[in-house]
């Protein structure tokens, strides 16, 4: 396919353009994936800790939503 190869060539600048888009995509996807993974891990740990104590934990300076009303 001539059109695809000429598109990838980008008028001779493909070697500069595609790394720009590629590395931007890789780094942004990487920070998103690691952030979501850490959140899931932390939530799992908190859930198992709360199961041990049998009550949801809220920091001392906070108001428990159930107690508010």
């Amino acid at each position: 396919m001539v059109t695809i190869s000429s598109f990838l060539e980008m008028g001779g600048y493909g070697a500069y353009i595609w790394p720009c888009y590629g590395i931007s995509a890789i780094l942004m996807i990487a920070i998103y994936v690691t952030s979501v993974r850490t959140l899931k891990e932390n939530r799992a740990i908190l859930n198992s800790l709360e199961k041990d104590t049998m009550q949801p934990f809220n920091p001392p300076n906070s108001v428990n939503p159930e107690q508010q009303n």
Partner: protein
Amino acid sequence: MAMIEKYANPNRFLRIARPLIPWIGGITLLCLGIGLYLALFVSPADYQQGESVRIIYVHVPAAWMAMFCYTSLVISAGVGLIWKHPVAEIAARETASIGAIFTFLALLTGSLWGKPMWGTWWVWDARLTSMLVLLFLYIGFMALNSAFDNAQRGAKASAILAMVGFINIPIIKFSVDWWNTLHQPASVIRMDGPSIHSSMLIPLLLMAVGYSFFYLWVLLIRMDSAITAGKIRTLRQRHAQA
């Protein structure tokens, strides 16, 4: 003031933030999807720079976000320092990681653009050097923030560093006007309006909006994670004491 105090409660913050996360993610993907399509397939090649101009659509949004994230880092760190606001301290810390990545991407894509256009990967001129200083400020903030056993002291010390470093932001913005530099002057944010054609401006702005929402998206996820980690720490301490 009342508003600042209202969101100082991590649980209340999460109750408001969590439902927003999928919507912010959706807007991010929509803007970046349309933006990328316009940037790669629809927007024209530049009459001087040829196809290489397409680097602008990932370079400029990254550079804008590098400065925007630093500004919001300084505001968050300042609010954390003055009002002892736990959510603001977390926002500052998590913004630093995202901002550092945007700064690195701005430098890297700039280098990949500089080689074909200027004939060099790097030059020690005002715009490039001040952007490199910004990257070091982010790294310094993160290092100082986590350098103390006492998290409060880390937050305080790094907040002061961030505030002093804010002087670099106007230097970056006006470096192209104040000094002779290889970097081209502003063509979007200027007093007499943008000087680039709408066929390039629209994809550029879409990408910039997409990058902004991406920041917000990842920030809220990371803040949720950091607040959860804080609860884990407190629960474990309580277990240890019991």
